[in-house]
């Protein structure tokens, strides 16, 4: 008996030493945060969405601050799979934290091709499918809001890779549960939610969008936490897959809310920009919290929401 509380999380066959990871798109390719913390402390690292070809991204004036939130249209700017494998992946050889690569595409074939390329790399532990990017014209959100399209995509990617497969869901649907069920039936190992819902902000002086020519953006930050929590709670009751909660987490208390709602792990997004060490603060806070409350295993908290029948 070590006497230490067990805060580990199981995502498919991936055992994470703790349940905290950064959310895709808020942690660059990992190296951006190396000067702020020891990346080995993280439960996992999820990198920015990679596409088959490099993407220059959205027009300038990509983000604007709103009440307790950030509205942003980055448009999946990324270096593309070729340069990711050549220039970005080697950095991860120097750290031991499990690596989850988020992938996005404009067609099923593109996702499959990405899954195959990454599947050959031993350093890549898992894939997270971005089926809900709010800021690209082709693909993106399309895959996450049509049940048939999602079924086809998850089924093909599942056949293409043996890596741990996570599907990142959007809240921009009437009922998120059927989408979660589809992922489970098609063999996904886990779900992560929510991706950013779409929002707008208008400059009343110029009567232009505060995101310029981009017009709309994905809303993130504390503003979306209640919505995220609701979606996580609903999905956890609908499927048996582990759920990774995402949306407005800025503290240990926020993370605990997600665990109580049923999440197996959490991803921290926008708050990384405000406190680049927030993931570590939550990890350390959780250890202390479990000791103080004599919680031996995180499963004692997970899904423990009171009065949650019916």
């Amino acid at each position: 008996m070590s006497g230490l509380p067990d805060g580990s999380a199981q995502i498919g066959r991936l055992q994470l030493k703790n349940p905290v990871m950064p959310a895709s798109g808020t942690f660059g390719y990992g190296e951006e945060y190396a000067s702020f913390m020891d990346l080995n402390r993280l439960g996992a690292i999820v990198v920015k969405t990679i596409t088959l070809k490099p993407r220059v991204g959205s027009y300038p004036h990509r983000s604007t601050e709103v009440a307790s939130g950030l509205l942003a249209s980055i448009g999946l700017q990324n270096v593309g799979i070729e340069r990711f494998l050549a220039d970005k992946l080697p950095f991860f050889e120097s750290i031991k934290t499990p690596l989850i690569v988020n992938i996005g595409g404009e067609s099923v074939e593109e996702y499959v091709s990405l899954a195959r390329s990454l599947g050959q790399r031993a350093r890549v532990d898992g894939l997270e499918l971005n089926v809900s990017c709010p800021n690209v014209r082709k693909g993106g959100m399309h895959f996450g809001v049509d049940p048939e399209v999602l079924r086809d995509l998850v089924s093909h990617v599942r056949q293409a890779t043996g890596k741990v497969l996570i599907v990142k869901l959007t809240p921009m649907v009437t009922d998120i549960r059927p989408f979660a069920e589809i992922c489970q039936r098609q063999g996904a190992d886990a779900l992560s939610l929510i991706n950013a819902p779409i929002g707008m902000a208008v400059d009343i002086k110029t009567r232009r969008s505060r995101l310029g020519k981009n017009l709309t953006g994905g809303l993130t930050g504390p503003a979306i936490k209640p919505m995220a929590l609701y979606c996580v709670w609903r999905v956890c009751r609908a499927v048996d897959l582990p759920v990774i909660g995402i949306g407005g987490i800025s503290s240990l208390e926020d993370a605990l809310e997600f665990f109580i709602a049923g999440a197996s792990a959490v991803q921290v997004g926008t708050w990384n920009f405000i406190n680049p060490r927030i993931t570590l603060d939550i990890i350390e806070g959780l250890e202390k919290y479990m000791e103080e409350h004599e919680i031996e295993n995180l499963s004692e908290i997970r899904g423990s929401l009171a009065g949650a029948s019916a």
Partner: protein
Amino acid sequence: MEYLILKNEKVGENCYRLTLDFSSARHLPIPGQFYNIRCTDTMDPLLRRPFSMHRLTNENGIPCLQILYRVIGRGTEWLSSRKQGETLDLIGPLGNGFLIERRTDVVLAARGIGIAPLCAVAEAVRSLAPASRVHILMGARFKDRVFYQEELQRLGNLYLYTDDGSLGFRGRAPELLLHLLETGKIPRTCSLYACGPAPMLMELSTLSERFGFEGQVALETHMGCGFGACLSCAIPLLPSLIKKTSRWTKSALQWSEDGDTCYSLICKDGPIYDIREVDWDEWLA
């Protein structure tokens, strides 16, 4: 990192100068670099605010960082109410600094609070090449908005301007510089350092091409993180000029597949750019 506030003085209409005890700083900034500062105790405003380093000073043996800022919103309003003895949460130094080189004539062109990163340039030029002539162009819309004259007079030849002519030259910084170049008060071999609104910088870049002088600009924009992770602060550069003119390492460039578009992150590759490499038309569109 938390730093102690030693002073937070008003130096002009809505303008303040913050002095922080920097004795615990692990890295010191060079002119042009910036800090991302948390300007709240709550979630409003959410994001940090970027401020350029103004000057490094020494207050009774304590190494200090000064930040010069204007109150323009909730973040800077909060900042202006901070008192001596309180602490501030800073990330930095971030970004690339100005390149300081030996030149006989150096021009610092600012509008309003744009003067903030330029004073340290004057000091750096003086220490590198004491014989250099430093010309400072400073102004605002009207007289009461012009501030910091006494400080600036100590740093070089000061030329003031106002849009309405209520103080100094009537016109804007590019018009004043044009006048000084045409009358021979500033030679065409000068080197320009500029900070201010983007349209002013764009006009200065036109002058730089016309007269053939070199220039560096400090840009500002909304930022999410300040350290290259959120990809918010993209600015279009002119693809044909990047390789030719840029003297900074640019690690955060993203090219379009056809090579016609190139975005750079201001926080990581900037905030200092060669005046001619920025695609002003596209950025201001």
